[in-house]
């Protein structure tokens, strides 16, 4: 019950006694706290349990949908998307396709990035192309020509240099960039 009992904790294997240090004196918790989204420096306490994915990092493979509430006033809104006094219904791709054309660019970008692998992602892709946006396969961003400047096509006709407007999904805004565009890189 005295101090000698602590020696194997300080130096492994002392006195012929072996403890699992990771569970006795423990570990540096900063990486565990980070994996939980807990910022141990700041006093701001975020609520991590509301979006807790799993007790183990290895099984926390994806975000989980937190508790949320959609007020009625957010649903069944009449007189939008040319729906007249009835709220718009989205229950057939043919009819809905027409409605997609009524969305602003940002709404299309949102639907494209938020709902991967779904019908709406395909429809927004088609609509954005109609509006002369092109999707860059490697950069994974949408871009369109800067209307004020004609790009210069390269000798080999495989690319062009010019000024383009990109939509940046991280900052959620359009930004202008000079860029060399390879035609094979867009779709």
């Amino acid at each position: 019950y005295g101090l000698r009992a602590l020696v194997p904790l300080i130096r492994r294997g002392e006195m012929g006694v072996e403890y699992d240090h990771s569970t006795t004196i423990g570990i540096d918790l900063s990486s565990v706290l980070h994996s939980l989204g807990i910022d141990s420096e700041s006093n701001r306490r975020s609520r991590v349990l509301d979006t807790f994915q799993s007790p183990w990092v290895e099984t926390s493979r994806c975000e989980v949908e937190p508790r949320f509430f959609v007020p009625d006033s957010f649903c069944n809104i009449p007189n939008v998307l040319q729906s007249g006094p009835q709220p718009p219904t989205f229950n057939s791709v043919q009819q809905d396709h027409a409605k997609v054309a009524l969305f602003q660019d940002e709404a299309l970008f949102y639907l494209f990035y938020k709902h991967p692998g779904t019908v709406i992602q395909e429809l927004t892709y088609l609509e954005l192309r109609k509006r002369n946006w092109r999707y860059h396969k490697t950069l994974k961003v949408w871009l369109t020509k800067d209307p004020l400047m004609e790009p210069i096509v390269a000798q080999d006709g495989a690319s062009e240099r010019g000024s383009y407007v990109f939509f940046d999904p991280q900052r959620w805004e359009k930004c202008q960039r000079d860029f060399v565009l390879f035609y094979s890189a867009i779709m």
Partner: protein
Amino acid sequence: TKAEKTALVFTEWVKLIQRLDGDDETVLEFIRQMIEKGVLQDSNGFICFMKSALELSVNSFKESDPTSEVFIAIDSLSKLLIKLICLLDFKQSSREEFLSLMFSVVTLVFSEDQGRNDTSFNERPYFRLFSSLLCDWEALRGHKFVKIKDPACRKELVNFDESFYNIFASFLHVYQPIAFPGFAFAWITLLSHRMFLPRMLRLPNKAGWSKLLLLFTDLLNFMAHYTKRTETHDAVTVVYKGALRVILAVSNDVPEFLVENHYELLNNIPPIYMQLRNIILSSAPTKVVIPDPYDPNIELHDIEACQVPAAIFYDPVQDLKGLKKPVDNYLRIPSSSLMRTILSGLFRTELELDTGIGYETTNVDVKLINAITLHVGIEAALEKDRTSANAIFNTKSSYFTLFKGLITEGSTELKFHVIQAIANQLRYPNAHTLWFNYVIKNLFYSDEFEEQQHDVQEIIIRTVLERIITNKPHCWGIVVTFVDILKSDSSSLADLSFIKDVPEIELIIKNL
């Protein structure tokens, strides 16, 4: 057969609910017909339906292509059950009875499945059922069940909400890892589920805390049972890592739960899990400001928070067994006969295995010692408010002499566990920490232990030091106490023989 007929009805439901939104009139009509046409007309009908629907759903999970939507049937069953809680007529029986009946059928199917399949039992479909029930209930209960148009039904559901979670917790208690090891990892994941744990922590008036505390003690109990000093099974170590993350998250979101239940939680943690113990004891209420414990000018009596007793949810008095009277009588009128009564009540009738640091068995009732210690601390803080500080900050007071007596008369083992119990109360700034800081320092400097003094001092240093050599977090009260002892000029620690005898410790003390 009847089971096949009900399976057909359930299959129809699964197809329907994938094509229509749950609130669609057709869906409600389907349920109404299930009730009117006798599928769910009474408990037996419901049990038969529930059993065959669940078995069908579990089998469909087992037979589905793992890359497909393996949980469609399970999710459909969950949605149906939540709808029934809303739509059934609960004049004859209550929603509580219905939910308990439902979970009982799940338990029947679950335990049959686990018994039949043993190690090829798959916990995932049952996990998914519980998880989806939590999600579907959460979707319904938003803004006090505002989606329920019928005011009477809405009011009933608002009142039922608390029971939903507590009944859910009761059945989770049935599935605890010691009872169903084949469900252990699903169980821990359910305990920490984002639609369950935050809810149980935040139900009004801590209505979920009792059941939640029971679940956490189930988890710690399982770990305590199967944690050995060296050959702990890997799976148990994985359980430990999960428990650590969950308790860290609780400590971040609702530390009050750990603060007010620290006594009961510690009764179930294996003593070698020192960091986990520190995490629980380092928790502090969100609103308490923690001064820098290393500040050399810190004066505990000047800290306002040290005048406020710590809130306690699980009252240790319920664990005092037959010693409540002798202890309370001793506090009122101390006597050596009462001390003898208390001492003799602390020894176990049989040896107990324990995974401690430096010991593997206990002859004393550690839980009872913890209960007495905290109880005396609570009473001391009350006494201070009732009479005066001098009534308890006084080495002649019965509150202090009770500990001194236990340590003087007790075996080394008893000394150790009493001092450990006191150290467990050196937490964030509160009146108990303040008083136990006083107790442990006066025990350390007391010259009334004669030849036992060095033993007592060594145990105190060991108890405090083991909580400091552990990785963070460190308990504020422990650090403050240790700085006090280190800083004191009356006896430089490094000269004490029991420290000089152990070079590693001497080095640490010198550095500190």
